[in-house]
């Protein structure tokens, strides 16, 4: 069992942020084509590219990515709810039914953002072997965005899923109805304020029973 803890793999070395010219070029070309609709981007060198666009430029961004960058492959589309869960992380709960905490400040991820809900789509270029993630902010009062079906027909089901899970409306989507849940289901499960009732009734036992590796001291 000694091999479980090796000494020769040193992972603490700080990786310098390396410049990534290909991804910089992609971001620049998107920014040129979208003009004011382009908000900002974030690059992790040699790894990935995030771009945030305005809500009105959502379909334009997809078209530009397909035609200018060669991202023919439609990977997926979804949304993120940045609201910190009002129920806390249930598994950390030591008491039965923890009182809802005061909401932590919302903190958006890479490429920033201002709103609670963000659309995310992932596109990939099979010739360049590079992908990018495009995000767009959705204002709380008006959770709607244009559909991508005209650009990528495969977006159809993904948008139905996002509509069901987050309650985001897709303008001009021909067939927006439930994809997973039965019709009488109420609520949007992937919103952070949707409670998992089974957990409210029967609490998670907590993290007390974490098993330690052999020979490891309890800190």
């Amino acid at each position, binding site marked *: 069992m000694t*091999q479980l803890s090796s000494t020769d793999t040193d992972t603490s070395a700080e990786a310098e942020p390396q410049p990534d010219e290909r991804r910089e070029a992609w971001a620049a070309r998107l920014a040129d084509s979208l003009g004011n609709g382009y908000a900002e981007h974030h690059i992790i060198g040699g790894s990935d590219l995030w771009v945030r666009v305005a809500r009105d430029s959502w379909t334009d961004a997809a078209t530009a990515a397909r035609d200018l960058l060669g991202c023919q492959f439609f990977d997926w589309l979804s949304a993120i709810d940045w609201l910190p869960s009002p129920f806390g992380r249930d*598994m950390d709960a030591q008491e039965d039914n923890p009182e809802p905490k005061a909401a932590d400040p919302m903190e958006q991820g890479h490429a920033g953002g201002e709103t609670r809900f963000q659309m995310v789509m992932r596109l990939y270029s099979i010739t360049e*072997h590079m992908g990018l993630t495009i995000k767009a902010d959705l204002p709380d009062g008006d959770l709607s965005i244009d559909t991508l079906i005209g650009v990528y027909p495969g977006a159809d089901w993904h948008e139905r899923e996002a509509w069901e899970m987050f309650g985001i409306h897709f303008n001009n989507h021909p067939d927006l109805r439930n994809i997973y849940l039965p019709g009488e289901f109420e609520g949007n499960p*992937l919103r952070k304020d949707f409670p998992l009732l089974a957990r409210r009734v029967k609490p998670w036992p907590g993290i007390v029973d974490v098993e330690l590796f052999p020979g490891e001291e309890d800190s």
Partner: protein
Amino acid sequence: MTAVGTDQRQQLAYVATQAADARLNVEIETEGMTLNIGPQHPATHGTLRLVARLDGEQVVEAEPIMGYLHRGYEKLADVRTYPQVTTLINRIDWLGSFANEVPFILAAEQLMEVEAPPRAAWIRTILFELSRLANISLFLGDMGMQLGAITPVFFAFRDREFVLNQIEAVTGGRFHPNFDRIGGLKDDLPKGWIDETRGVMVKMRNFCDELEDLLLGNEIFEARTRGVGVIPADVALSYGLSGANLRASGVDWDMRRDNPCGLVHDQLDWKVWTHPDGDSFARYWVRLQETREATHMIEQMLDGLPGGPVMAKVPVIIKVPAGEAYVATENPLGVMGYYVVSKGDLGPFRVKIRSASFNNISVTPWVMRGVYVPDVITILASLYFILGDIDR
């Protein structure tokens, strides 16, 4: 059979679908009929329901209805720790369970800036390819069953057991290994395993040969699959088809070769198989070749397995630093990826699961316009989906 060039064959396939489209517009008054297949039907191997509106023997419109197996993975991942999430995601594509863990673990490792030691990466890749064998061998048999040939499925269940035995010997689980850890693997290989696996690889190649003899030369099989369900490359890409479904449409793209991220496929000598036709036959053919290629890959990896530890140094209680990462790998069913958003907690803040079958099956309404009812079964079988992978 007369020899037909690939270009010509593809052209013929197109003509066939065009003609099917045209026939729909013929002015014959027939009573429309709605055919409901599923939600429990052998042909959908799982709980997919297909509602097809028919005109005579032809499908005017087919719509898959899923959600009969929706378990809410993305929500459950919000309230679980990283090790608990790996237990869950085993069950997405239950035929190739180990392969489900790999992209998630790689994404978490990317966020933690941990790298698995070389031996762990190699064993990971071996198990990754073994789960491909376990998964696709069942498809190879099942496709025959959908078309009326019972024997292949018994062969598949017979020979698949050998692969499952090998997976079980390493991980302790036939189906759901839960063996991958952030920073490496739970354990090393057991004694004698490498030699046994070599024997199993020979068995699997024999299995492929048997099926090739049984099905590929079979006139009925060819008649039922050639030119049925043609998906051109551009359509396949815009629907996000991946894996063998995409390569059967002539797109030469494989994540294992082009974007290896953490696995060792780039150090092996192997070939990406493509087929220009894009029909059901091509999809079967590509998968058969891939199975064979996987056995060769595993043999190479068994030969070149490096020594050393199988686990990097990671803390006991894993907290992943804040950030976002998307890692996708070429799983048995196609590209599977996890978009992990972390806020520095014990568990992820949001996990978006990109499962291959969801995209693969979303093309069915497009491809099923104008086909005959028996072809519905062929197309569904050849697109090859796992319900857990669609519904998540």
